[in-house]
């Protein structure tokens, strides 16, 4: 009761103090671009297709292989 005035004045400052103490939460975009993963997948598909075409070539053009 004695400190009623003091408490009433200080109470609004309490959330401010809590915010100052709480850890900062940062939301950041990932450093690695997602396109890198896509490129690797596309390269693998092309590689498989080329390998298949090459196998076909070896079967068809026996004179030069």
């Amino acid at each position, binding site marked *: 009761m004695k400190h009623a005035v003091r408490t009433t004045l200080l109470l609004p400052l309490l959330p401010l103090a809590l915010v100052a103490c709480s850890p900062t939460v940062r939301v950041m975009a990932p450093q690695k671009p997602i396109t890198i993963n896509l490129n690797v997948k596309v390269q693998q598909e092309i590689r498989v297709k080329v390998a298949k*075409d090459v196998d076909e070539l070896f079967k068809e053009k026996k004179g030069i292989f």
Partner: protein
Amino acid sequence: MKARFNLRIILLICLSLFAIMQVTPSFAMTLNQAKAQGLVGEQVNGYVGIVSANAPPQVKAMVNKVNVRRRQAYLQIARKNRTSLNAVEAIAGKTAIGKTPRGYFIKTPRGWARKP
């Protein structure tokens, strides 16, 4: 009786011609024959290479023709798949070396060696 006699004559002629072809250098040698004789071999770059500088000029000419036709074929595949010629050459080279029989010459980054 007559049919069998004729067949034997034909067979003898064929075998003789085949034998003559193997020995006479003026007859065109096929790629597989040249490989079997250790004159040429597959390379990692997808083309045929000459193992010995002493290989007959006919063999060298044949190898050049083969490589030109290979390059054309690789270009077609590269265009079709929208990729580089280098990529196709590398894949073809790997395939060719993979299909090479044991004991045949292959050219690795370390030089010519018989495939183990």
